[in-house]
């Protein structure tokens, strides 16, 4: 089968979703690991930022790769959503969900919320056009990301948006994580129930560990 044939095949498209989704999940974990350096105080996260800024080629290659993967994931997500909707034009008067979950039925919507949240997050902390005007340097001449995050996480609208963004991400991963194993054909009948439970646990872990950062800032543990 040619690349074109693969990309137009409905199983091929699902595989594209699964592979790009897997890379995006890796990013969510790497980003979480990077963010966790905030628990070490200004020395942790400011050093981490300085380190990243000292290798611009790597950072930009990584960004380019992630943006490409993201665009492909969104494009095929929309394509499949529209095709699937088209395949079921008439709705039932009564339809009971036997196995489908809130998460599985709303992937497009939770995905869109995550997309919106990502844009806000980039404007907030990366481009700093929302509330933070510029990134100051700390006393060791490192970019003071620590103070920026502390400031950013004390604004109520931001906190609310982060909460809903993370909630949407949780539901998205909840269905997406186990789904990618099914689509890549590695799920056996035995593994199936276990993986669905693990998927829920994993999504909750992502939600909790990301939420912990604003939580400790609000609680005044990090200041």
């Amino acid at each position, binding site marked *: 089968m040619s690349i074109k044939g693969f990309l137009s095949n409905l199983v091929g498209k699902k595989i594209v979703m699964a592979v790009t989704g897997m890379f995006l999940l890796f990013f969510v974990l790497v980003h979480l690991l990077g963010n966790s350096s905030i628990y070490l105080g200004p020395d942790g996260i400011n050093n981490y930022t300085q380190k990243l800024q000292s290798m611009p080629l790597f950072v930009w290659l990584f960004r380019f790769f992630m943006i490409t993967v993201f665009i492909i994931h969104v494009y095929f997500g929309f394509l499949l959503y529209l095709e699937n909707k*088209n*395949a079921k034009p008439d709705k039932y008067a009564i339809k009971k969900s036997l*196995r489908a979950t809130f998460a*599985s039925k709303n992937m497009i919507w939770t995905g869109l919320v995550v997309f919106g949240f990502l844009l806000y997050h980039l404007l907030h902390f990366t481009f700093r056009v929302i509330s933070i005007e510029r990134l100051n340097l700390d006393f060791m001449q490192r970019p003071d990301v620590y103070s920026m995050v502390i400031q950013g996480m004390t604004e109520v609208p931001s906190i609310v948006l982060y909460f809903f963004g993370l909630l949407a991400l949780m539901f998205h991963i909840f269905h997406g994580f186990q*789904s990618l194993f*099914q689509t890549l*054909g590695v799920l056996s009948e035995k593994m199936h129930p276990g993986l669905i439970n693990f998927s829920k646990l994993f999504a909750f872990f992502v939600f909790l560990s990301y939420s912990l950062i604003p939580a400790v800032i609000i609680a005044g543990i990090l200041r």
Partner: protein
Amino acid sequence: MMNLTLLVWRQKNANDKGRFEKYEAKNINHEMSFLEMLDVVNEELIKEGKEPIAFDHDCREGICGMCSQVINGVPHGPLEKTTVCQLHMRHFKDGDVIYIEPWRAKAFPIIKDLIVDRSALDRIIQAGGYISVHTGGVPDANAILIPKEDADAAMDAAECIGCGACVAACPNGSAMLFTAAKVMHLAKLPQGKIEAFRRVCLMTEAMQKEGFGACSNHYECQAACPKGIKVSFISGLNREFIKAQLRSK
């Protein structure tokens, strides 16, 4: 004996808009099957000079895959692993209101009332759901060795009766469970392995061409399947598809 209120989807033909019509099913014996209950309702309609409700049925013993009704929002009704013909009225209560709808999917156009055209499934089979290599005469017992697990899995997949409940249950109107059962039934056996890669590509292409959606892993299909076909066969189809891509040049 029980009395029921039925809300049945009535539609003259594919072009008609269709609507629900209300019928009272009176003096229904709880030993009747759901189809026998409809037979009773139809006899009354005929006596009154009205058009009887058109519905598909054939063997009435749960193996032909013809009966196809969504009963109160569940394909084949509320009982697991049961076709409509094997669903008995004892599972309903006196005074129940029952919604009866046809399978709904773009690939299954409505012919009349509860009857839909499921020939799209036949065309998926025609695209590759067969073995065309010469496999010779009937081999001696144990001449072709097949591991027990593979033989069992192939038989489990072969249980699919092609009723289309998976398509009816799927929010995407996808025929993945059907196609996966057919692909895996043959891919598990030595005679079927020879054309396995070509088959999975042709059958998934045919499925798309017929207007079925893609699989979103909702797993509604497995829950609705009267034969309990497992979604692990869909995982198997995906695996076969990936293997086919890696092999093809």
